[in-house]
């Protein structure tokens, strides 16, 4: 049955009200407040925020509610839409009023709920009541929502804000259109575009590391390492379709190889960076092989849990008393020697360039494989393992190969990061790290390079950018992840298969290069045209 528009807008209001209550209870409003306060330079803290800031927050939320509910009633008349926004405002305001009403009660009865709801200090509750006495504060809260929602409605009706909806839609399709635009146009134009693009890219890559200081070098460097891991995992999950949850284990193996070979404690072997790098990659790959060998029969989530277990096993062992003498135990390995250039150790800039090179290499390899017989075999396995097998693909071999190569990528990333941080400890090898990489490739769009790049920035860059909101950043991150999946389930940049240029009229058979193709000569001209 269809709800009336009033009922709908009432519900909208309720939802916004609930969101508001949640925000107040986690003192998110105060955080926004203190951000605003920072901008206008007023002292304010989470425990006793500036009243003005809280009002500002409430107004913003109210406006949003009003606009949302007015936009929702697209087909209705302006009057009704205003009414809708009013209803929304009142229902959300009602909830807000109830909340602060309870606050007022606690203040009067002098109950301190902080033992349970940690943010509700008395000054905070005062501030939420706009430090007004008695009913005034409650009414004030109610009317902030009511009025701002109404204003929101006016905005929509006034000079119409359907813009919002369409903007959202555009944002949704932006990457697709953008790519399409790049792909469009004459071959020559495309070529020029391509060259210009790469030239600019090169200039950027050449200049930026020198310019943007150690912090951004570090952040972008980490992103780079995650790109490498993302590509590696993409070979396993994106191409060959095996869900692996303990991917970080291979990273750990690479990192510890580098660490144990190039740190004074515990072994003081001092192989130097480059041989250690090679060995790190090889050992990680070998680990992938040994893990994969017995598990080829497993499919889907069984493989997932086993690899998850593998990751945990590696982490626990690295942390355990058993291997302390070997791997440094919980203390990890410190003072790892990095590579040297002209006799002096790498600076952050040097590392940046090293990582850029590694990323370029990883991209190259990934790209080559993706469009080869091997890559096609992987995709076939992902699409339908049984049929792939019946078509003559040795699925075991190729699944194993994917695991081995993917693990190698992780080893590379691990080795570099160990040298860059000059430290590696079991603390970094947590399950969440594996999950981060998985999220990276899925958020970005599985099985393609631009997606992986974007995903890496989203997952490693975003939390850095969100630093301003301190404790709220992981909350925001989680919410974004869900929203992301709902809005763009196929990832920011959906994969699409390459367009091979196919011969127009088929030249005489060159099947000599194909083994035993001699037996069978496909027709030169075909009957259907």
């Amino acid at each position, binding site marked *: 049955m269809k709800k009336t528009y009033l009922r709908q807008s009432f519900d909208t209001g309720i939802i916004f009200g609930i969101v508001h209550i949640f925000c107040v209870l986690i003192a998110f409003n105060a955080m926004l407040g203190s951000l605003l306060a920072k901008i206008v330079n007023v002292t304010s803290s989470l425990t006793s925020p500036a009243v003005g800031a809280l009002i500002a927050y409430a107004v913003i939320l109210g406006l949003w509610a009003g606009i949302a509910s007015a936009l929702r009633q697209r087909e209705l008349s302006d009057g009704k839409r205003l009414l809708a926004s009013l209803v929304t405002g009142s229902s959300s305001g009602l909830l807000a009023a109830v909340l602060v009403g309870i606050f007022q009660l606690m203040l009067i009865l002098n109950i301190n709920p902080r033992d349970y709801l940690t943010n509700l200090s008395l000054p905070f509750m005062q501030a939420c009541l706009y430090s007004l006495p008695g009913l005034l504060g409650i009414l004030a809260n109610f009317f902030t929502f009511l009025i701002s929602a109404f204003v929101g409605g006016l905005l929509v009706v006034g000079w119409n804000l359907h813009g919002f909806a369409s903007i959202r839609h555009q944002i949704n399709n932006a990457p697709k259109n953008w790519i399409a635009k790049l792909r469009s146009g004459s071959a020559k134009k495309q070529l020029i575009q391509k060259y210009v693009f790469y030239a600019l890219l090169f200039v950027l890559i050449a200049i930026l590391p020198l310019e943007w200081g150690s912090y951004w070098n570090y952040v972008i460097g980490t992103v780079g390492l995650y790109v490498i891991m993302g590509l590696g995992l993409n070979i396993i999950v994106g191409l060959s379709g095996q869900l692996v949850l303990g991917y970080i284990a291979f990273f750990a193996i690479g990192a510890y190889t580098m660490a144990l070979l190039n740190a004074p404690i515990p072994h003081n072997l001092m192989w130097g960076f480059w041989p250690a790098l090679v060995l790190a990659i090889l050992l990680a790959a070998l680990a992938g092989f040994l893990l994969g060998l017995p598990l080829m029969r497993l499919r889907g989530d069984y493989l997932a849990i086993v690899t998850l277990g593998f990751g945990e096993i590696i982490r626990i062992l690295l942390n355990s008393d058993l291997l302390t003498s070997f791997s440094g135990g919980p203390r990890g390995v410190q003072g790892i020697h990095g590579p040297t250039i002209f006799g002096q150790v790498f600076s952050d800039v040097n590392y940046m360039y090293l990582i850029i090179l590694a990323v370029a290499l990883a991209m190259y390899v990934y790209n080559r494989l993706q469009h080869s*017989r091997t890559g*096609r075999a992987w995709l076939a396995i992902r699409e339908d393992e049984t049929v792939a*097998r019946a078509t003559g693909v040795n699925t075991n071999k190729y699944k194993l190969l994917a695991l081995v190569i993917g693990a190698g990528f992780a080893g590379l990333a691990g080795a570099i990061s160990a040298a860059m941080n000059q430290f590696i400890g079991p603390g970094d090898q947590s399950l969440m790290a594996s999950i981060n990489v998985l999220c990276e490739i899925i958020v970005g769009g599985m099985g393609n390079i631009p997606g992986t790049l974007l995903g890496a920035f989203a997952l490693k860059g975003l939390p850095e950018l969100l630093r301003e909101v301190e404790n709220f950043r992981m909350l925001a991150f989680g919410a974004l992840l869900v929203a992301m999946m709902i809005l763009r389930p196929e990832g920011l940049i959906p994969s699409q298969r390459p367009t*091979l240029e196919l011969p127009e009229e*088929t030249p005489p058979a060159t099947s000599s290069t194909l083994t*035993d*193709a001699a037996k069978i000569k496909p027709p*030169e001209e075909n009957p259907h045209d």
Partner: protein
Amino acid sequence: MTENIIECREVTKIFGGLTAVNKVDVFVPKSSIFSIIGPNGAGKTTLFNCISGFYTPEHGEVYFEGEPLRGKTTDAIASMGISRTYQNIRLFSNLTTIENVLVGQHHRLRETWVDAILNTRRYQTEEKASIQEGVRWLNFVGLQGLGNTPARSMPYGAQRRLEIARALGSNPKLLLLDEPTAGMNPQETLEMTALIRRLRDEFGITIILIEHDMHVVMGISDHIAVLDFGLKIADGTPKEIQANPRVIEAYLGPGGAALAKKYSRNK
């Protein structure tokens, strides 16, 4: 005896209680079209699965060119020269059509991941050649110009043809077609039958066919085997089969034989 490319000797496949295929003998001469018919659930597809190695029969043995297939993995069997299509179309739906055919060629190519990374001559030549051959197969089955369209976005009939192109890509000696004309209109059906004939006549591929459309079956088969409830109830040329009362009963139920006689006399 050597003329038979495939020999099923007393092949028996049991699922739990029920015997899907029961002591079935099938001998298929080289470069012939051999049809397996029978009512639904007669065990036709199960027999296919035994041949292409999805199932290993409980009793009996399948010989391909005199070599027993027991214990061989499906990919090994495929690379021996047996390839097949599926009753419910099973393409690599997110790959393009040409890529589907290229996967079909997989086991004939020699290029490896190392070649791909180093972009060796072998990689380049093989890619070029295999793409060319792939395109020719696409043209052969009548999908010219559709090389770069994703398999999933193709019409039903085209998908069936693509499945055949993929099977041909692996350069088979024996081709198992599971209801190739199912759900096709008469026009498409005609084209398909023509296609199947050409496969035998031009390339000498042996074809085993599961088919419900009797016109097709009687039209193109050299030999027909009839399965019913897992048992082979008849075997022979189309003429013999048409005359065989047991077959007619299997299809038309008891008394059907007489009915059919009457019908044929009237003709």
